[in-house]
């Protein structure tokens, strides 16, 4: 622990030094934990922040597609490139101590989307996935009074997935919130009138994800509720429900802002969806890092967590949410086209 606080202190000292000699035009990086639309929106936010007059910095956005090893390699390469600050969504923070320390040593480290409280990070930007899961669970509990429930999720290894799933279960079953609880994915849980029949993963293979949903609906013909905890899980659940004509017969509590899911919410056969604000993750990350490079640490609260909370989208607010999102993406795209690569010079 001594080393970590040393590293934090060293970073803070460097930031303090920037106060007198601020970086002219800082170069910061935003690193995701994979490739997804979610991250494309975050990217739009990061790029938009880079363009912002008051922030004004170069932005590099990286999406590691090959898991932990790939993320490590990209982070190392960015450090070598001489990036001033990095905001990363660590895939497995407990075991990524070395590379996170390397960033803290040579650059400035903050985390987004998925926190690493033990790492020498200066702050975390994002929401708590357990809380978001809890929201989704409550949404489901309100819309469906008991029956068989199936959970679909891309994969369970990453921390945010585990917390999100646990939050959903606790929210659905009406348990007292406790983020440290862990239900084995292979166990059937029967509680409070619900039977959670299982959790299915697909390692990001959509054809497989669709097959999972179809097969589970066949195995459990009386299935009352599904949830897709990653964006495409919900999208595919909507697709399968439409293809099998089970609108209204199987309830769906969604996660994230897939276009088909929002449309289905408007049509009324999906209970609702819990959305995060990836745009803000990107925007805030760049903003905070840029401020650091000018010696300003005032944005970081004492807790070290900049909370950007999740929202529940239901039939009533679906339309306005969608319009807003479209506008943001469009803005991000326009500004993102050329300058996403304005790092070279």
């Amino acid at each position, binding site marked *: 622990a001594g080393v970590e606080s040393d590293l934090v202190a060293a970073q803070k000292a460097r930031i303090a030094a920037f106060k007198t000699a601020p970086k002219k035009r800082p170069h910061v990086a935003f690193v995701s934990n994979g490739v997804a639309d979610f991250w494309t929106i975050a990217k739009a936010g990061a790029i938009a922040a880079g363009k912002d007059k008051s922030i004004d910095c170069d932005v590099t956005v990286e999406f590691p597609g090959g898991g932990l090893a790939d993320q490590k390699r990209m982070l190392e390469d960015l450090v070598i490139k001489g990036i001033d600050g990095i905001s990363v969504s660590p895939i497995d923070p407990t075991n990524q101590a070395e590379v996170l320390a390397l960033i803290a040593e040579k650059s400035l480290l903050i985390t987004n989307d998925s926190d690493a409280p033990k790492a020498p990070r200066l702050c975390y930007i994002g929401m708590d996935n357990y809380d978001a899961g809890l929201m989704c669970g409550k949404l489901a509990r309100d819309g469906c009074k008991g029956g068989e429930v199936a959970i679909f999720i891309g994969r369970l290894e990453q921390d945010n997935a585990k917390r999100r799933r646990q939050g959903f279960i606790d929210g659905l079953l009406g348990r007292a919130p406790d983020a440290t609880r862990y239900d084995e994915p292979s166990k059937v849980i029967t509680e409070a009138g619900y039977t959670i029949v299982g959790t299915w993963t697909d390692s990001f293979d959509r054809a497989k994800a669709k097959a999972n949903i179809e097969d589970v609906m066949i*195995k459990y013909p009386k299935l009352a509720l599904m949830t897709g905890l990653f964006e495409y899980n919900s999208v595919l659940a909507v697709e399968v429900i439409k293809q099998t004509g089970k609108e209204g017969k199987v309830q769906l509590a969604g996660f994230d802002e897939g276009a088909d899911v929002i449309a289905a919410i408007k049509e009324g056969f999906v209970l609702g969806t819990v959305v995060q604000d990836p745009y803000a993750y990107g925007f805030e990350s760049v903003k905070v890092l840029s401020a650091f490079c000018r010696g300003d640490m005032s944005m970081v609260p004492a807790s070290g967590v900049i909370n950007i909370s999740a929202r529940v989208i239901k039939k009533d607010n679906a339309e306005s949410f969608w319009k807003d999102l479209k506008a943001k993406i469009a803005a991000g795209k326009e500004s993102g086209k050329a300058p996403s690569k304005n790092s070279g010079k």
Partner: protein
Amino acid sequence: MKKALGIIGIFAAIFLFASIYGDNFLTGLNLQQLTNRAALCSILALGASLVIVTGGIDLSIGSVVCLAGITTPWLLVEKGWTPMQVLPLVLVMSAFIGLCHGLLVTKLRLQPFLVTLCGLLLYRGIARWMTGDQSQGFQGEFGDVRALALAKFSIPGIENYRIPATVIPMFVLALLIGLFFSRTVWGRWLLATGRNESAARYSGVPTARLITLSYMACSLLAGFGGMLFIFDIGSAQPSDFGNFYELYAIAAAVLGGCSLRGGEISVVGVLFGAATLQVLRTTITLVGLSSQLEFAVIGAVLLVGVAADELIRRFSARRRERLGAPVSA
């Protein structure tokens, strides 16, 4: 046909197991969905087998699936093209990719593994770059085009089971390829080329042209399959759509009796190879095994299956030999 017996046996065993131990396996809806998946996988596997028969390999199938599958909704939705423009374009693009592979393999004599591995990296990269890593979908539109993959035809007298539209291209392709190899001159030539290229060349067979055409056909089928896949699924993410599909396609072909040394094919076998893979995956869910175990089970079952097939073959050959009469010269 004889080559296909092994995989038919394996298929039957798994099917039987699933019928007994899988929940609702023998329901119309499940069989309907299985038929659909098997048909899609077969189209890729048939393409793969066309290249394998030349003694080559195509590792880019999955990436061509991705590129074709992503381009289709991208052009339709983002660029606002009409289906009548998009579908031919995507197919031509796929065939062109295959043409490049074929020319690199036959003219420059590069190793097929290397050429198509570069393809694997390249086409997915292009798809990701083109779309900016955004997932592409039909956003609820284009139901009429998607019907190409989604339509189902009722059979009079049978309830619950309707034939998925994807079965039609599968059967047509299987029939064409089967006839091609058993009845046409070019099929003959391709078989000869795959086994002994110099013998074929010395017999005046235009081997380079045939090999090039095989690669074209393979990529064309991959592109066509990719289109059907996306019609079926509705949306896809460029970074992971079609990952590993080449391995499944090649596995189906090899299970179905194609030899990677070339010159051997069994269309029936390839269809059963593809079906086996799909039934196996569904069985795992319906029997209630954890999805973590899915790959382990598929690997183990296939390995045991092919090993058993080989042992049975050997055993019966030895028996026949023991009972056999002396050869009359």
